[in-house]
């Protein structure tokens, strides 16, 4: 039932307009990189309290989504969900595109990006960063092998696909652990931070896949059966519920211990409370679930698209909240005491991101976008039409 894979024509005005759009984003990102390189991080909004700002929010979100983009491939290869098999190539390729976009932002935001090679020459294997260098490189290799097997050597698809699936779980655990392992940071030090990142990658990766598939199929006038999209919708619902579950467990555990009352109260009332309430809970969980469970909106492709969009905004919000609130909350050097100094001890840090930071982040999105657009033009990534297997009925509809 699998139809042929073909490259898109990519000659239309609409296609080139998109290429130019993402190209401009790349240029904007490049410009901001040069500006920060010349003038130093002094021209960003970052300071010695918030040292990872908006670029890291973009980078980490893209990395989380990259791992999640492999969902469709994994669901078909590892879990034998037949209707997603036709998206295997798309899914592995999208994962590579997003990963490169995210990594680019991460590297270009270094204080000394010119010394990047040093990370390859002097490695500290105790550092989550070094481990992530291996995890990211390995992930790209596995995605390429996976793609290769899907193009040429189908007999290896199952093995490589399963390896890629395991790798991505470890990879996202690694990304989450960058934060989770830091003992002194009360907002994000938790064993559950890494699993939350894994769940987040599942939801955001599915969401970005839905958005791109529906748009690409529509723009290239290919057939995408609604039933296939609704299958993805059901997966998205499950993944969002998983994120919500982990967020609740974390809160529950922390609220049980009086030692965390201060920080938990601060999350709900401090300067990042709106981001927490509207971004983390609103955009990432409540709004998409409300849409997806709605009897008419949940059963329309546009409704599913809106829910996906919110899920992605929510992913950025969760990462932003974890990162920014996590750094803004004062370090508790003297538990039970009030602290003050000329170095902002004991006070919530302030941070107003500068335009260059957003520009660098957009540059990462530009890179991922360009890779995706060129990929579907030059390689046979997408099926001519995507339909559910014969006789397939969705187990559940809102």
């Amino acid at each position, binding site marked *: 039932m699998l139809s042929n894979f*073909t*490259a898109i024509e990519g000659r239309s005005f609409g296609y080139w307009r998109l290429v130019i759009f993402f190209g401009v984003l790349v240029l904007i990102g490049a410009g901001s990189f040069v500006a920060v390189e010349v*003038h*130093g*991080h*002094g021209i960003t909004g*970052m*300071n*010695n309290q918030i*040292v*990872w700002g908006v670029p890291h929010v973009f980078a980490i979100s893209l990395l989380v989504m990259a791992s999640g983009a492999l969902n469709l491939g994994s669901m078909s290869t590892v879990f034998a969900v037949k209707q997603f098999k036709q998206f295997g190539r798309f899914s592995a390729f999208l994962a590579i595109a997003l990963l490169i976009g995210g990594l680019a932002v991460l590297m270009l935001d*270094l*204080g*000394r*990006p010119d*010394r*990047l090679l*040093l*990370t*390859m*020459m*002097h*490695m*500290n294997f105790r*550092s*989550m*960063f*070094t481990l992530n*260098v*291996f995890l990211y*490189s390995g992930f*790209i*290799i596995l995605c*390429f*092998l996976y*793609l*290769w097997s899907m*193009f*040429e050597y189908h007999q290896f698809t199952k093995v490589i696909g399963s390896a890629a699936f395991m790798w991505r779980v470890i990879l996202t655990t690694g990304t989450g652990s*960058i934060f989770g392992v*830091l*003992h*002194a*940071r009360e907002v994000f030090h938790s064993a559950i931070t890494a699993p939350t990142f894994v769940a987040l990658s599942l939801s955001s990766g599915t969401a970005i896949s839905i958005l791109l598939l529906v748009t690409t199929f529509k723009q290239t006038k290919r057939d995408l059966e609604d039933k296939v999209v609704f299958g993805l919708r059901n997966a998205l619902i499950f993944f969002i519920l998983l994120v919500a579950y982990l967020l609740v467990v974390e809160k529950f555990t922390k609220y049980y211990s009086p030692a965390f009352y201060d920080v938990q109260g601060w999350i709900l009332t401090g300067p990042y409370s709106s981001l927490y309430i509207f971004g983390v809970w609103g955009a990432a969980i409540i709004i998409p679930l409300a849409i997806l469970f709605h009897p008419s909106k949940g059963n329309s492709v546009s409704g599913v698209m809106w829910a996906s969009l919110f899920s992605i905004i929510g992913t950025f919000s969760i990462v932003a909240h974890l990162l920014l609130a996590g750094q803004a909350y004062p*370090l508790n*050097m*003297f*538990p*039970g*005491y*009030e*602290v*003050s*100094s*000329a*170095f*902002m001890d004991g006070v919530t840090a*302030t941070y107003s991101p500068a335009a260059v930071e957003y520009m660098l982040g957009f540059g990462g999105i530009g890179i991922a976008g360009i890779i995706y657009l060129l990929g579907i033009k*030059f*390689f046979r990534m997408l099926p001519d039409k995507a339909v559910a297997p014969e006789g397939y009925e969705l187990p559940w509809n809102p």
Partner: protein
Amino acid sequence: MTMDRRTVLGFGGAAVAGVALAPGMTLIAAPSPDKTEASGDQRWAMLIDVNKCETNCTACTKACRQENNVPLFGDANRDIHWIRKLEIRDKEHKRPSVSLPVLCNHCENPPCAHVCPTEATFIRKDGIVLVDKHRCIGCRYCILACPYKARSLVYKKTSFPEGGNPNVPIRAKGVVEKCNFCVHLVDEGKEPACVQACNGEEGNKAMVFGDLNDPKSEISTIIREVKTQTIRADLGLKPHVHYKGL
């Protein structure tokens, strides 16, 4: 135009080779930690007597800026602090506030060094935690990891200050730096600048610096005989700045 399979494989193969080679590439051998000049016979540490330290005294912080060419940018959020004065007070305000300097604790289990991807931050045999500013890539992970806010990123280009110390380089833009126990002085058998200042005319003689491995040193004797504390000992980092009277 559609690329054929071979082209796909070619691209993929090149990229795979690229990423596969990169992590394993070794172009320059890293100096191993045991090649530093320092000897493991010493274990440098500091003791601060909080009862002697006075709120308005900034002799130590001034001396540090002078000795190490640490500039003030006039932007409280971005200023670099290798040592700073803290005021602490119980939340109920029942007791008077206490003033104390806080600096890098030269932890025995330093999370800053554990997270540093390039080993730019490393611990010398004598326990001094250093940053190799030529190896630091400015990732700032160490700033997130240090529980004592002992590290600062240098946000701007700095220049040699008027009347600065020619024996110490200026702070380098884009890298993270912190107190190094005035390693250049310690290696000459002298005490860190802050300790010298605290024990000089302007100070209150609240700081003692010495070798914990020498049982006869002043610091070893005090730590043995009097109750001292370290900040957040519960984190298990084994800080080497001890406080008396906290």
